[in-house]
């Protein structure tokens, strides 16, 4: 897993801020995380945070590719 850049962290935190506080993201054996827990993990560059950045950036890149088509 590549370390997230500061720009990627900012982008993902902004995306997560849109999530309602009442919704969870479930990440397999890592557990269930609220919006605020995810933002803390991404900002703190924890293992979960890095994984969430990788997942969100993969999706955003695919979105960009699909938008071009």
């Amino acid at each position, binding site marked *: 897993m590549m370390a997230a850049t500061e720009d990627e962290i900012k982008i993902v935190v902004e995306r997560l801020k849109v999530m309602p506080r*009442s919704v*969870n993201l479930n990440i397999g054996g890592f557990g269930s995380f609220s919006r605020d827990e995810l933002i803390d993990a991404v900002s703190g560059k924890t293992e979960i945070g890095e994984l969430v950045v990788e997942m969100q950036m993969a999706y955003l890149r*695919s979105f960009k590719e699909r938008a071009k088509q």
Partner: protein
Amino acid sequence: MKSTSPIFLITTPESDPVVFYLSKWSEEVIEEAQNKGFNVVNLPREKASLAEFEGHMAKMKPCFVMLNGHGSPSKIAGHKNGIILEKGRNEKVTKGAIVYARSCFALKELGEACVSSGAKGFVSYSFPFMFVSDPNRSAHPMKDELAAPCRITSNMIPVSIIKGQSISEAVMKAKDRMDELIGFWETRRDLPEASIVASCLYWNKLGLGLRGEADTRIA
């Protein structure tokens, strides 16, 4: 009289909220298997243990096995994270079976070990399996609209296999449906979390794959 029905073995642990969801989602798969004439062997909660799993695999010799549980590259857990299938320990129990593991990371190392030991096919995920959920629906996973796209697409795989499709057809069909649902959820404007739901579908699609012969199917 000895039954000639094909045997479908499934584990349904419930020891934390994530596996509780996966196991409740499995009710649809169990119903489909029963409708198609399978003899369903369900190992629920505490029965999703190493001893029960190995014992039933040896005795019943299922043609299709579905595991719901946390995974790592080399192992899959049952109830309370007790390991039930592990590379280098007991992958031989899958000999002759098609395995679908709704588990994180299990595809590559464990999947390849099972196929090398005689499993007919292994379908699983290379990355952590993710889904969005609504905690207000946590007691009723089947009524959770936010979790539904990942339920539908991850249940399609075992249902397709039960219906006689090959493991590659099952994976392709699920990925096609994921694409449709990604398109739907990323354009929803009524739910602020819709784009996160779409990103989970995309991530699960990236991780989904198979090991073994692509045209393997239940005989």
